[in-house]
């Protein structure tokens, strides 16, 4: 055997292969492993969400009694606590000297930083997305409380999964390493797969969960393969390491890297439901419980776009000329495809699903700008869209009543006569998604298109405007049905259904979404400024223990 080894190692027979010198252990024992330093207070929002979910699961499994109403209140408290925990970190990242009465002068300076050995980046971008996701959790929990009791499904599971998936979304937003990004993506996705199948007695819900799971796993595999290829091309999975590598080395053949980027885009494209990776979204939106969709439509999109922005707009910005055309194609297909396919639907949930595909196209327009204005537009859009879509699905939750099968357009006929306020609020949410002035949706679309024009893609802006006009038909169709008494041919007078009783949680959720949608529509500057200050940053870790950046820069 040793002869074989010596032949393989190409040393003369009898030659001695000297073993690599073992690291000498100090007399006290083996070498301690250097562990990365962790800035716990910067991770507080994430830890609050995770620990909150686990605590809720433990409490509720030890207390046998059903605690109606407690689950939702607890979830909202956790989400608010996570939002509050964001504040001091935001102040530190932005370099504020003090927050209220608390002195914030840090020993290790201000500004964005990275922690856990460079695997996690703490910057305004990540904090902004965290707040958006927590907002989606709050609205989702408000709706879920009444929904679950109405459907006799009340229990802590939905809330636990919602908090866990929110934690996954936060990990995605803060990930400075492709592996951590994947970890966040899976934490987010697996919880959402189960959420989609949460309605145990509704066969469509089971189907939605299974469909989302199978297609989502497939997309995750693409994503993972993309990570492997990017690692093969750059020698690092750390975004800082990749950026450093690309700053120093210009590879002659970059086919591997480009292929990796394409696979990463497939993974992201699936999560944000961009055409042609959108096929799951109408079925899943239709089948999943409406409160879950209210949460998912905002939070999953926000997390996925956060990852997309950090990887493509920040890390691979010098490859923008290569990936921009792909984003253009995805944006145009999503905007036009969403608007046109939605126009032939008769189910309100499906129409809203296509509308969300259409909106993903608009966000992609901002992504294609690939500069700071683009990031600002993406963040503004995500924040505004989360509340518009949550509001729309809040109305859907209330209207479908027990059994969750009143989603046809005809079920909304005459809503303006039985529930004028509900119909008016729904109209505003729909018009906001269409981009009508004095709503948040107008400014969201305006800034996205402006970012595209600034980046020189004026023709993309033209297509976006055209798509907005086509998409307006989707929303006006629902509005028309609500305000008109006759059927679609206008001939027969159809009696309106009974008046719908809106529960308190529903009103609260609607109020939150309404205030944000209209408030931002009238005074957009605070949100816009916050989105502008929420700059993503790739800062190398001071204690690069794992040293991916160092390893990559001295690489091939």
């Amino acid at each position, binding site marked *: 055997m040793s002869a074989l080894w010596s032949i393989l190692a190409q040393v003369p027979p009898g030659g001695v292969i000297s073993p690599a010198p073992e690291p000498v252990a100090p007399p006290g*024992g*083996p*070498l*301690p*492993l250097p*562990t990365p330093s962790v800035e716990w207070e910067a991770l507080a929002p994430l830890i609050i969400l995770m620990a909150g979910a*686990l605590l809720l*699961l*433990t409490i509720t*499994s*030890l207390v*046998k009694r059903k605690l109606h109403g407690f689950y939702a209140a607890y979830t909202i408290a956790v989400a608010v606590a996570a939002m509050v925990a964001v504040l001091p970190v935001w102040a530190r990242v932005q370099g504020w000297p003090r927050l209220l009465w608390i002195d914030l002068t840090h020993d290790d300076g201000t500004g964005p930083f990275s922690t856990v050995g460079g695997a996690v980046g703490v910057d305004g971008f990540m904090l902004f997305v965290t707040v958006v996701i927590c907002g989606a959790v709050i609205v989702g929990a408000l709706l879920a409380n009444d929904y679950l009791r109405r459907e006799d499904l009340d229990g802590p599971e939905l809330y636990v999964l919602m908090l866990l998936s929110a934690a996954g979304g936060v990990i995605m937003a803060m990930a400075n390493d492709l592996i951590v990004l994947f970890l966040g993506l899976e934490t987010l996705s697996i919880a959402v797969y189960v959420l989609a199948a949460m309605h145990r007695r509704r066969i469509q819900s089971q189907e939605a969960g299974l469909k989302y799971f199978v297609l989502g796993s497939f997309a995750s595999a693409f994503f993972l393969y993309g990570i492997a290829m990017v690692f*093969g091309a750059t020698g690092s999975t750390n975004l800082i390491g990749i950026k450093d590598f690309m700053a120093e080395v210009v*590879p*002659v*053949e970059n086919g*591997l890297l480009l292929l990796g980027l394409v696979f990463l885009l497939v993974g992201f494209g699936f999560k944000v439901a961009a055409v042609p990776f959108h096929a799951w979204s109408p079925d899943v939106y239709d089948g999943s419980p409406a409160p879950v969709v209210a949460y998912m439509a905002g939070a999953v999109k926000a997390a996925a776009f956060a990852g997309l922005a950090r990887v493509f707009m920040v890390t691979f910005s010098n490859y923008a000329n290569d990936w921009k055309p792909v984003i253009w194609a995805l944006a145009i297909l999503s905007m036009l495809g969403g608007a046109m396919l939605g126009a032939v639907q008769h189910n309100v949930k499906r129409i809203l699903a296509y509308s969300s595909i259409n909106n993903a196209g608009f966000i992609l327009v901002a992504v294609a700008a690939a500069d700071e204005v683009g990031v600002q537009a993406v963040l503004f859009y995500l924040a505004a869209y989360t509340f518009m879509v949550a509001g729309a699905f809040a109305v859907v939750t209330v209207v479908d009543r027990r059994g969750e099968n009143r989603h046809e357009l005809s079920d909304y006929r005459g809503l303006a006569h039985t529930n004028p306020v509900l119909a008016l609020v729904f109209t505003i949410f729909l018009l906001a998604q269409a981009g009508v002035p004095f709503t948040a949706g107008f400014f969201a679309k305006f800034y996205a298109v402006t970012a595209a024009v600034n980046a020189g893609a004026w023709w993309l802006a033209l297509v976006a405007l055209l798509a907005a006009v086509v998409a307006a038909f989707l929303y006006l169709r629902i509005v028309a049905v609500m305000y008109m008494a006759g059927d679609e041919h206008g001939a027969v007078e159809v009696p309106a259904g009974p008046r719908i009783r809106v529960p308190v949680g529903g009103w609260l959720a609607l109020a939150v979404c309404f205030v944000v949608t209209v408030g931002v529509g009238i005074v957009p500057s605070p949100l816009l400024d916050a989105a502008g200050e929420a700059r993503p940053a790739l800062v190398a870790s001071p204690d690069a223990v794992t040293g991916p950046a160092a390893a990559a820069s001295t690489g*091939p």
Partner: protein
Amino acid sequence: MSYSDFVRQYLTVAIFGGLAVGMVGLILGVGRILRPDRPQEQKYITYESGVDPVGIGWSQSQIRYYVFALLFVIFDVEAVFIFPWATRLETYGVFGLVEMGIFIVILALGLVYAWRKNVLKWV
């Protein structure tokens, strides 16, 4: 290492794969030539520990086993991570101890949940 060298390394994988396929083909082929061939009806029956098979192979199994399979995964994953960790515990120090403690507690919470949901009872 240049890019084409990197790709060329995969040649080893291809050779290894070809060798594997060829070897299996060779062994099966030799067996086919050498062995006697006397087909009988009984030889085609599925062998079930000496018991005659009953019913078809696609029969349904108890849904209860599924829960136990899931619970098994909890402990299996725990073991997969704990064994390598235990051999290097001294190197990881207090940090590693706390980390593994958190991991085990989270898994234990899952078990508590399953227990309180009466999953551990064989109904």
